């Protein structure tokens, strides 16, 4: 005892030095969040966060040192003057079927893939953006680069929608949307290889199971990097979110009609050994108010937290606790023998959906329905990105509430048209007011222009996806409990953006065999006609002398 305390005393300055040094070193933390949804599904969110500083900034010697950060990710960003970058892939998310306005992670984009970020200005900023998109597209095994060499499909006026998280002067925002992207194992493999735990230990080992992860209903993968500056440390955050299919349906196979589940049941693994370099490794369970009888064994630490406009109970387990390693956590609802689906699931306060009402194959109308179930008016920007071949009829835009036209609710419209037939984009930002307890409908008629043959997708007749529309709420407040004692205030949320689904527009690929048929048929007719004509005009009718084979020429009856 004495000896150990003496040792502690002697080594104290060294420990202190180590700890103080640690402040500037890289730090890694990971968490796994479970959120049972009211309809029997469960949302699962893996988050990995590394804070890092660049030795390049602190020392005069040009050097690159990486301990927990992946050089393959950071080096292309460093060389290309990136200040912030977000990559997000989402597939299978359908907001109309879930009770939440979006994914648990607020930075996930709408459907498909998206790369967006802020680059420090330089004379060749466009080329640098091109280099970043191609480098990270190669890293993530997903074609993130532009379709066009001139970068016509890059959007540059979304800086207001995705503001900087950390203020850096003289920067430009870029966004490149790939609504056709989806997720598969080849995207998970590079994601895991970027993590310091490589999918081998800690929470990431639960994620490194493509067979299980990709059987979920929806997946979303993403990374967000804030590059270090002289004043701030850098941060890179990776997330993977999925929605488990109905738990009760799975339980039914074992004659269990409840929603009971456990970690091992959903992830086919017991709680893993903690990753030794992780500063924190936490399992979180989010309980809605309605789920008050949701229980867990062993018990975790309960606390109240304000999440997405609601006060919720969060139960936390520290996975670095050795007692949990190799064990399982059971979850059940007290007194539930048979799970009954709720008759109605309360919708999120703001919902948005987009459809196309087609009159003809060549024209259509986007019908965007935004409903506000709150008792107060909301102010928002609705943004769209269209490819060059979608031509909107701006003068015919209508905003309706119920059946009444309400042009007064449209405060502002920013329209940045494309330049057909070059590959380019049209961007639209509508600043709107959404009245309390009502449903606003925005109608935008459009025509589809004729695509170049090479611009058609190689899978004929499938159509082409349009990026998700984005509703950016302008009146959100920080995510802390509101001052009044209410347990619910939809304005107090970190969710600033709500996405519509992506949209598949029917673009028939011209069938060139039909023109060929016509050309071939008409050519045949012409050939037959002119052939006959020529024959009639140049042929002479008369008797021909034919030899009888003996060398004599038999005179045919010429004079007959």
């Amino acid at each position, binding site marked *: 005892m004495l000896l150990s305390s003496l040792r502690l005393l002697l080594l104290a300055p060294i420990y202190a030095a180590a700890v103080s040094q640690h402040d500037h070193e890289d730090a890694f933390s990971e968490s796994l969040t479970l959120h049972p949804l009211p309809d029997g599904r469960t949302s699962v969110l893996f988050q990995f966060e590394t804070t890092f500083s660049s030795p390049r900034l602190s020392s005069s010697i040009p050097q690159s040192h990486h301990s927990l950060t992946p050089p393959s990710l950071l080096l292309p960003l460093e060389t290309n003057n990136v200040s912030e970058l977000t990559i997000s892939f989402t597939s299978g998310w359908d907001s109309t079927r879930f009770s939440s306005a979006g994914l648990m992670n607020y930075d996930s984009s709408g459907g498909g893939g998206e790369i967006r970020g802020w680059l420090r200005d330089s004379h060749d900023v466009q080329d640098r953006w091109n280099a970043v998109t191609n480098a990270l597209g190669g890293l993530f095994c997903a*074609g993130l680069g532009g379709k066009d060499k001139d970068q016509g499909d890059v959007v540059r006026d979304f800086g207001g929608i995705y503001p900087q998280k950390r203020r850096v002067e003289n920067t430009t925002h870029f966004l490149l949307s790939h609504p056709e992207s989806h997720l598969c194992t*080849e995207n998970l493999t590079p994601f895991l290889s970027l993590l310091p735990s490589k999918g081998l230990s800690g929470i990431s080992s639960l994620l490194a199971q493509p067979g299980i992860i990709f059987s979920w209903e929806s997946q979303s993968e993403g990374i967000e990097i804030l590059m270090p500056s002289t004043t701030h440390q850098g941060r890179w955050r990776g997330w993977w979110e999925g929605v488990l299919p109905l738990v009760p349906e799975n339980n039914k196979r074992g004659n269990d009609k409840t929603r009971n589940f456990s970690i091992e049941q959903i992830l086919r693994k017991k709680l893993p050994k903690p990753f030794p370099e992780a500063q924190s490794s936490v399992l979180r369970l989010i309980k809605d108010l309605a789920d008050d009888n949701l229980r867990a064994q062993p018990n975790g630490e309960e606390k109240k937290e304000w999440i997405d406009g609601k006060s919720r109970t969060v139960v936390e387990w520290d996975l670095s606790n050795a007692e949990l390693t190799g064990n399982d956590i059971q979850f059940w609802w007290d007194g539930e023998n048979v799970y009954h689906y709720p008759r109605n699931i309360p919708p999120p306060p703001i919902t948005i959906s987009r459809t196309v009402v087609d009159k003809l194959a060549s024209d259509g109308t986007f019908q965007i329905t935004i409903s506000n179930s709150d008792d107060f008016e909301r102010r928002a920007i609705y943004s769209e990105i269209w490819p060059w071949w979608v031509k909107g009829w701006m003068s015919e835009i209508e905003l309706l509430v119920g059946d009444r036209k309400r042009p007064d609710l449209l405060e502002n419209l920013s329209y940045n048209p494309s330049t057909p037939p070059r590959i380019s984009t049209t961007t639209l930002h509508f600043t709107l007011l959404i009245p309390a307890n009502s449903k606003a409908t925005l109608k935008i008629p459009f025509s589809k222009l004729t695509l170049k043959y090479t611009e058609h997708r190689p899978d004929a007749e499938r159509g082409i996806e349009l990026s998700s529309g984005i509703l950016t709420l302008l009146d959100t407040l920080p995510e802390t409990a509101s001052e009044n004692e209410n347990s619910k205030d939809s304005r107090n949320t970190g969710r600033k953006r709500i996405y519509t689904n992506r949209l598949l527009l029917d673009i028939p690929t011209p069938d060139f065999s039909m023109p060929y048929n016509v050309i071939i048929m008409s050519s045949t007719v012409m050939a037959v006609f002119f052939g006959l004509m020529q024959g009639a005009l140049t042929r002479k009718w008369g008797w021909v002398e034919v030899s009888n084979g003996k060398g004599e020429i038999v005179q045919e009856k010429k004079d007959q």
Partner: protein
Amino acid sequence: MTLRHLYLILTALLAIPLCIASNAQLDSQLSDLFSNSTGTGRHTNNWAVLVCSSRYWFNYRHMANTLAMYRTLKRLGLPDSNIILMLSDDVACNARNAFPATVYANKGRQMDLYGEGIEVDYRGYEVTVESFLRLLTGRHDPSIPRSKRLLSDASSNVFIYMTGHGGNEFLKFQDNEEVSAYDVADAVEQMWEKRRYNRLLFTIDTCQANTMYSKFYSPEITSTGSSSLGENSYSHHNDMDIGVAVIDSFTHYILQYLETLGKASTATMKEFFGIYDPIKIQSHPGISTSLSTVPPEEILVTDFFGAVARVEISPKEDELSPLSSDLRGNMWELATKPTSRIGQVDVQTSDIEGVLRESGDPSHGWNKPLEGRSNLSNILGSLVGIGGIGLILYVGAARQEKVKEA
């Protein structure tokens, strides 16, 4: 006394050829040591381009063919960085796949080809004739990442595997374009001109596949295809749960053979071609070795399906001097490798270099990897030389003593 002088001169004269001989012998021994003794030919690295050119769920077998080749190459030691995998559709995460994130090439579903980790370099709409020809010829936009480039050189053995739907002298890509046998032949000729391969194995599994390699005219190509002109290539079998055919016949039998091989196998391409059985495959596979200077019995299967670790030893005189005038003028080199030119006085290098130079720390010195070897061989050579002198002196002295005794 005069005799002793004569001996000395003689021994000195003898030592010179001995030194030279030992040096040459050492060089050959070293190159023997580092070269892959089981391999044939002079390649130092392997590359593979695996192309599945058809999309849609019902072409599952083409994805499975390609992925089975990918798994086999990885099993035989070729790293992911040297395999360019082009998959024109994603059957693994297709909504119709009852077994998400998996692809199987047999009906029992024993081995998942998609596995826990995979790197697909070109996928979906990226797989086009243009990207394939650019990949072969190396004509890319500068921003294209390394993972999407075939970074082969004049000592690379390149294996190209293609599968999809094809016909007489063409292979269909996606659902809207074709690559013709002439295009591929011209691209390969460009590869040869640009010294992008040492030896090339072209394998294709499609209908009328043998016509696809009939237009090659570049040297050192061995090619093989699944079926001759006018013949179809058939799938091997279905899996009732997946619901579609899982693999093509030709690829199935190739893989069945390759499964028997290990990394150190000494099987030759002749044995590989020997397993072709037109009755089993249901088509007549073709082999073309006329462009290759080496007959198939002298090429190992692992020359293409595997990764050699052979090191090329260049003679000392082929090295560029670090102090050559071209390099001295190259400021970029100086800036990127400040420690590489210690002792060289250059006013324009940074202060750090100056500090390093003054400290005279030898650990900062940049030694070329081959320099150590040549020093070693010199020392060994001179040791042998000294030994030779000693031996002759000893013999000479002994004889003198004999003379004295006499």
